[in-house]
């Protein structure tokens, strides 16, 4: 079928423009809607007082602490594992069957729905290993969930370090490990950091994997073995049980703002990284 090329271009342009518009509209609608309903209840007091009456009144202080604790521990577990795997895959092996299997496995891990991670964490950490509903169980589960992202972004960052840096380093009599630690990793750091920050964002917003493993206690957590409720879980429970919609929206607003800030920081870092090597 032949149509006028000029007409074709015009139609395509309008269509693509429309698609973009819809995407942007949905994004801004969600942000606007949540902020409009949530921001009125968000103030200093909301952020710094404990929830009362199951969250009907009071603030969200303990859930903020719970979110930070879970995310922090998850990142502390996943980052060394992820970077180590990435270094192994890029620097210490050549492409072969085994690396393909490892990569395929980690890619599959990335595609598993988070509720399955929740179930897995519940069975393994909460019941089998008797950690109970706790920050530790939740963090371990989250760590496995974000591991593929960290591996993937670290791998890309390490691969983008110019080959001649390694060559020079070897020519000066350094070992492979010295080259990795002193030349490759410092150059790859912004890229690796981007992956870590994106993972922080995912951990903060995660609900399904956490509700089964960290529980939903509203008390202030006192140790790794305390059960704790994250902001995302708090929002889910309050909305589902109809406890307090204003407070649910308030929590959502705080969550969205946090994640926006994290994404902006990650984007900036990525930009800086790209600029440095092109």
């Amino acid at each position, binding site marked *: 079928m032949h149509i006028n090329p000029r007409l074709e271009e015009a139609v395509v342009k309008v269509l693509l423009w429309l698609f973009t518009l819809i995407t942007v509209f949905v994004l801004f609608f969600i942000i606007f809607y949540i902020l409009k309903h949530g921001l009125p209840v968000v103030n200093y007091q909301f952020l710094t007082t404990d929830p009362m009456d199951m969250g009907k009144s009071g603030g969200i202080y303990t859930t903020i602490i719970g979110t930070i604790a879970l995310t922090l521990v998850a990142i502390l577990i996943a980052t060394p594992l992820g970077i180590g795997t990435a270094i192994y895959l890029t620097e210490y092996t050549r492409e072969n069957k085994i690396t393909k299997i490892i990569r395929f496995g980690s890619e599959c891990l990335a595609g598993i729905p988070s509720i399955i991670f929740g179930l897995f964490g519940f069975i393994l950490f909460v019941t089998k290993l008797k950690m109970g509903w706790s920050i530790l169980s939740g963090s371990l589960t989250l760590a496995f969930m974000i591991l593929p992202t960290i591996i993937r972004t670290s791998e890309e960052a390490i691969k983008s370090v110019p080959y001649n840096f390694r060559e020079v*380093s070897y020519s000066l009599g*350094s070992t492979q490990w010295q080259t990795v630690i002193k030349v490759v990793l410092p150059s790859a750091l912004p890229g690796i950091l981007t992956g870590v920050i994106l993972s922080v964002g995912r951990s903060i917003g995660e609900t399904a994997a956490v509700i089964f493993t960290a529980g939903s206690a509203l008390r202030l957590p006192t140790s790794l073995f305390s059960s704790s409720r994250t902001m995302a879980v708090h929002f889910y429970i309050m909305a589902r049980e109809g406890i307090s919609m204003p407070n649910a929206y308030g929590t959502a607003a705080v969550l969205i703002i946090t994640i926006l800030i994290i994404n902006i920081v990650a984007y900036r870092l990525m930009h800086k990284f790209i600029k440095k090597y092109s």
Partner: protein
Amino acid sequence: MVSSIGGANLRMEVKNLNFYYGRSLALKNINMGIENNKVTAVIGPSGCGKSTFIRILNRMNDIIIGTRVEGEILLDEQNIYDPRVDVVEIRRKIGMVFQKSNPFPKSIFDNIAYGLRINGISNKTEIIDRVEMSLKNSALWDEVKDRLDDNAFELSGGQQQRLCIARALAIEPEVILFDEPCSALDPISTAKIEELINQLKEKYTIAIVTHNMQQAARISDYTGFFLLGELIEFDKTEKIFTNPSQKQTEDYITGRFG
């Protein structure tokens, strides 16, 4: 026919070298000596194997997958491809300056200190002294002494290449390999590097790959002519450029091909 050099003062010696990329033979039966405190140049058209050859001399090709070396490369009578030899130690003794200046994204100071630190020197004053000495030896000190903390990328191309030379000098190698060090530089920077190489041969043994025949004629004492993976002729530079014994060498240096 390869004319052999009767120099008794050989620092390195290449014996019956064959080199393979996968199954293809890239260098065929190379025999050549590199004399102490002299400049040995390797010339030849693109793809003749001259860069491959010089990278064999400090085992840089080990990093490339699927390469294989046959024959012997001796440094002070010791085969550097002997399985008992520590490759890190070999590269420490045989430094290298690459075609494209390639400083690390670090400060001028840290670029040079890098090699010292990884080789276990942690004494601060010693590092400072040796950085200064290396920069003086590479004729860069006067230009950068007030800006050692600046990023090395802020230097000009010629300065970056002299920084790379300083970086190689800092760990005090015995032999320095230059892989077309001036191919990306303007004539003035090139002249500086050539002058530098001329000074360096008092202390070091130098091998240089160059695309530029005049450069080989200007700075080297011995010249090897490579063609299609073979060493066609190896002799005193003067002889190669005035009275070569091989027809192919003559054709090349008179510009009939290449």
